[in-house]
């Protein structure tokens, strides 16, 4: 193994045996194991048909959660692992954290490994915050003296100084998560394995976690990071691998892998009828991407001046009801948002069916993937219906006034701006102007 490699994995595979058995709890029951042994012992003498009412019938099926997975991670590198649910991300992390054995293959890990597959593993509700810091620290592999020296830092990061001697069962969920993350954030292993820990806490806390993790990677530690948050992966990781059905679909720079993952993750949706729920005060019934003349679009190009038709049903009139939409880029970052009041149009406060027609100010899309979210909410920030990324579409290149001028332009959108040009031949202006 070359000296600069921290993790070397080759041909990793993990097989699970799924047994479809009559016992609904899923645990083996001794009786079944014994009867199976008994049946096996009797088989040479007398044929006993399996699957009779008295015998539990078990069909066993092999399932490869991982197959032929191999990669190298250099010292100090942050590798992102992305993929859909069930793609094998967690299994891979479990093997690397030594929680479970691989069925095939081999991993070499160079240095002290700590894994963070969950925030607050082993926290005991009856113990105080102080006691849990020591307990959790020991579980994550810190020594007592290490915890002692970092104790004040941990407590300050979590901001729970006043509640150190309160059992954590009395903590608010925010305090609990902050304390748990604070312990984990002060681990100092050579290799850190993190699974989706950012999926907890409020936005402010997530921002702090992200910052802390950036610090960690700056200190030259090797980090493996699994997340569904593409923005976080893109910010933290230099390289990424994308898993699909237990195999590596793509490996490369984080940006490329994410873009590839997102563009292949689900087909285009240009029209959407969200599921109805009679309990909602108001809901979006239909939303469709339209052309300039109001006809539904079958594809979007850089030349289309597109728009939206939104059909809204209001069941209870509310004076503070609002509707808005936002346009997002491939990483699901919002580019802009808009609501009727922007254009002096009234919000749908009355009971009944409302139709909204939105027209974008010209061809605004570049050849990228976009998504559109529609939300119905009140000014007191109660969300009645949130159609997150209801529309998803890839924009095709086509000749348009702007796009043709410079097809490789940077940015997330094309916006036709008003340009004026004045030219002065004479360093002393004499009143002659050339307007471009």
């Amino acid at each position, binding site marked *: 193994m070359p000296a600069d490699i921290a993790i070397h994995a080759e041909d990793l595979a993990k097989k699970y045996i799924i047994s479809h058995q009559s016992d609904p709890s899923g*645990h083996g029951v001794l009786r079944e194991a014994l009867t199976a042994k008994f049946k096996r012992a009797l088989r040479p003498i007398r044929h006993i048909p399996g699957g009779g009412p008295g015998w539990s019938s078990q069909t066993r099926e092999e399932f490869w959660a991982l197959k032929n997975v191999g990669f190298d991670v250099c010292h100090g590198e942050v590798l992102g692992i992305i993929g859909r649910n069930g793609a094998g991300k967690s299994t891979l992390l479990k093997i*690397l954290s030594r929680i479970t*054995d691989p069925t095939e293959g081999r991993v070499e890990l160079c240095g002290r490994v700590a894994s963070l597959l969950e925030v607050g593993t082993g926290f005991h509700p009856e113990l105080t915050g102080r006691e849990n810091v020591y307990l959790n620290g020991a579980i994550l592999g810190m020594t007592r003296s290490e915890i002692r020296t970092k104790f004040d830092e941990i407590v300050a990061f979590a901001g729970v100084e006043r509640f150190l001697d309160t059992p954590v069962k009395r903590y608010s969920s925010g305090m609990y998560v902050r304390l748990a993350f604070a312990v984990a954030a002060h681990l100092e292993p050579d290799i850190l394995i993190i699974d989706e820990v950012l999926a907890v806490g409020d936005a402010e806390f997530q921002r702090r976690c992200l910052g802390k993790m950036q610090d960690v990677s700056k200190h030259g530690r090797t980090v493996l990071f699994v997340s569904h948050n593409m923005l976080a992966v893109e910010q933290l990781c230099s390289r990424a691998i994308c898993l699909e059905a237990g195999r590596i679909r793509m490996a490369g720079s984080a940006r490329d892998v994410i873009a590839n993952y997102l563009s292949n993750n689900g087909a285009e949706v240009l029209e959407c009828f969200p599921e109805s729920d009679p309990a909602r005060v108001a809901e979006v019934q239909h939303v469709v991407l339209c052309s300039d003349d109001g006809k539904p679009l079958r594809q979007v190009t850089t030349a289309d001046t597109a728009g939206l038709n939104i059909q809204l049903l209001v069941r209870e009139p509310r004076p503070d009801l609002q509707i808005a939409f936002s346009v997002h880029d491939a990483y699901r970052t919002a580019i802009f948002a808009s609501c009727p009041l922007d254009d002096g149009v009234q919000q749908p406060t009355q009971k009944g069916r409302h139709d909204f027609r939105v027209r974008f100010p010209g061809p605004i899309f570049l050849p990228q993937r976009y998504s559109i979210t529609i939300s119905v909410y009140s000014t007191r920030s109660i969300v009645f219906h949130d159609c997150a990324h209801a529309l998803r579409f890839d924009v095709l290149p086509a000749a348009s006034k702007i796009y043709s001028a410079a097809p490789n332009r940077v940015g997330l959108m094309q916006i036709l701006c008003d340009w004026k040009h004045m030219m002065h031949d004479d360093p002393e202006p004499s009143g002659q102007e050339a307007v471009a």
Partner: protein
Amino acid sequence: MIILEPGRLQRHYWRDVWRYRELFVILAWRDLSVRYKQTAIGVVWAIIKALVTVAIFTFVFGRIAKLPTGSLAPYTLVVFAGMIPWSLFSNILGQASASVVGNSNLIGKVYFPRLIVPAAPAISSLVDALIWLPLLFGMMLWFGFWPDVRIALLPLFMLLTVLISVGPTLLFAALNVKYRDSQFIAAYLIQFGLYVSPVGFSSAAIPAQWRPLYSLNPMVGVIDGFRWCVLHGEPKLYYPSLMISISAAILMLWIGIAYFRKVENRFADII
């Protein structure tokens, strides 16, 4: 450098166990510290339990059945001296059998030598037993019945009790991961074992011709030995039963560790 391969038995297993000794201590401390949280009288419950059991056994076996003890000691002391090793054994077996499943959240999320999990209750149960010792000495003071120099061997018998408990415990804890039946078996073993072991009575109550057969229960040698060191004037140690206990402890420890290590790699997959 760590190498992970299928079925690779950890080459540095015992070094890892040693490295994680702080986790072992802290898990034992957690078990102890959580036990009496939010109770008004806390550890007094342990004392009440001891006193009530001793009183009942003294009454049933000593007063009603009038079983012989073959010793000079008051019946109450004979019972108490038998209770301590028995509860040490039954506490370890009871808590540790459920321990691996009870800590499934840890097993599924963090690596450490799994052996630590069922071993930790041995420490917390030992602490419980140590709480009972002053109570025993207090009672001896009350009865004016002092131990002699044999008391110096007490730590050895304590150790033997722990060793004899750990073997079956590891087996039950590991089996429990796959077959939840084993926690019931452990519970029955504890319940019936109390009556077939010389806890409420002395082994002297067993007719001489049955004594070798009776001694096949490995707890007989342990409990008799424990009594022998605490109470002076106890009959001579019955060596065959002590030998059986020691060999049973070693054999079961070996089987327990071997089985546990064989299956522990799969705990996270099937728990």
